[in-house]
């Protein structure tokens, strides 16, 4: 059984490789170990494989070589393993991906009621608690498209939190937002970081990285080029590629 060997680490990538089609080698020999409660920010130029990397963790993308173990479960074609992992992993998308035909409250109670088999009343109480946490409870009965982008993303975070995940994945959560709304989303994420949940966040919000990340990972061309704590990564990048990237995003 693969469930015992990899203790201490919440997520382990072991020489993981992935291709799109035959020619696009999107992840190359990824080795990465994420400790329980660790908060990681992943950055890098577009097309570098950051999103694909975190999407492998809940099997939205499948890797073709290497081992990927999440909370003691190895991800492979076993559907039960995938289900087990998805119960532990919440995800927030760049485009929110709220269900537009359901109200905010229904978006939050859907999975607890249908997957978790909670009675409606209990699911709604828990959902309202999460909405309070992201400070948006008064919008519970509106439809997603009636909210601003920042509000929608906070709902999406609350929806993921309803499943009490051990790991949260953020795929560029603020990239689709108006500048004035970025802060309200980051504030919610920072508050969440204090609660010991394991977080992996693809983002270019360097202020957020400095404030909460334990480790910053820089990727380029499907590889992890450099990883370090935020202070050292920003002030003293070691690799030429990361220096170049940082000079571009911090340069103005």
């Amino acid at each position, binding site marked *: 059984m693969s469930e015992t060997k990899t203790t201490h680490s919440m997520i382990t990538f072991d020489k993981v490789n992935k291709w799109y089609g035959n020619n696009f080698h999107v992840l190359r020999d990824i080795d990465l170990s994420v400790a329980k409660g660790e908060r990681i920010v992943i950055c890098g130029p577009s097309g570098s494989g950051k999103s694909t990397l975190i999407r492998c963790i*809940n099997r*939205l993308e499948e890797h073709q070589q290497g081992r990927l173990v999440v909370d003691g479960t190895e991800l492979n074609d076993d559907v039960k393993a995938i*289900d087990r992992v*998805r*119960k532990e*992993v*919440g*995800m927030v*998308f760049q*485009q929110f*991906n*709220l*269900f*537009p*035909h*359901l*109200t905010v409250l229904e978006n939050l109670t*859907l*999975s607890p009621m*249908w*997957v978790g088999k909670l009675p409606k009343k209990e699911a709604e109480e828990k959902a309202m608690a999460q909405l309070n946490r992201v400070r948006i409870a008064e919008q519970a009965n509106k*439809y997603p*498209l*009636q909210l601003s982008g920042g509000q929608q993303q906070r709902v999406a975070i609350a*929806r*993921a939190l309803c*499943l009490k995940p051990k790991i949260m994945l953020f795929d560029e959560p603020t990239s689709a937002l108006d500048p004035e709304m970025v802060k309200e989303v980051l504030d919610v994420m920072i508050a969440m970081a204090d609660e010991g949940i394991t977080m992996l966040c693809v983002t270019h919000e360097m202020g957020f990285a400095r404030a909460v990340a334990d480790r910053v990972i820089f990727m380029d061309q499907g590889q992890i080029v450099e990883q370090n704590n935020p202070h050292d990564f920003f002030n003293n990048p070691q690799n030429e590629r990361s220096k170049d990237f940082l000079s571009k995003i911090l340069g103005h």
Partner: protein
Amino acid sequence: MNTTTFQPIAARPAPANTSGPLAWIKANLLADWATAVSTLVIGGVLLWYVPQILNWAFVKAVWLPSFDACQGKDAGACWGVISEKYRLIIFGRYPFEEQWRPLVATLILTGLLVLSCMRTCWKFWLAPLWLVVLAVYFLLMYGNVLNLSKVDTERWGGLPLTILLASLSLIMSFPIALLIALGRRSNLPAIRSFCTVYVELIRGVPLISVLFMASFMFPLFMPQGLQIDVLVRVLAGITLFAAAYLAEVIRGGLQAVPKGQTEAAATLGLSYWQTQRKIVLPQALSMVVPGIMNSFIGTFKDTSLVTIVSLYELTGSMKLAISSDADWMPFIMEGYLFIALIYFIFCYGMSRYSQWVEKQVNKSKLR
């Protein structure tokens, strides 16, 4: 540096009234010389023809079921043919003195159809109610119980048959179409190819040939002694035919649901069927309501083709009623206009219902 305070400009009403009948005429009928000319031409044509049509259809029309009056030199439309033959047109070859049975049965069925269209009635009891109503319907129509004489399905006809064929084939084709549409997007190659072949095969042949096969060829392949009623075979044919077209309409909707929706559902742990039922289908179907209704209306009118296998639904029974009577045969045009009106009433009702459904499902999109 001085800071200035932001001073919002107060909102003002829109400029002076640009609406009203005169403005409308100017904008829509006489905007420039080309519009003015076309207004005049179309107006002239209408002025010339509309009075003639009204004159023919109403003023000079003969309403009495009198053959002689219709022969008059100056007579307009001969609506007498309808007063004379309406029972044959509407009920077809169903035995004349028993025609109260299809009337009652169809009223019950239509009543249930209307109920099923209302949101307040979308409860669990609707399904058993349908079974009860269908049972009552067939007992009434077929008879052979409780002093009701037996009437074979081949004598059923007219509007009741049209409504029966249309409603049953629409209700049955919808779930089949859903499965075919989902199947064409399945990850499993066997299911995907089966559904694709099904759609392409059905779309590749005309409904007439499907009906022909259902009616004449299918019995040849059945084991001796096993007979399936022609009505059932034709119903199956229309259902399978309608399902293929409907499946493609639904597939269009499925493709319009962004991939992020299924991804989000997957991260929330929903299974394939939960995702389809709760997330994908509600959005997909609400996007293709007009297309679905298009398909439904098409199927409703396609039922007129069953005449070729000797089932006389509304169109067939009208032709049978009028052309079998040499006296009235010249007035078959009036017969066609009469059933056209009946078809129009049903189709327009379906169309209005579709608009209501669209409003309902679009509520979540209103800001």
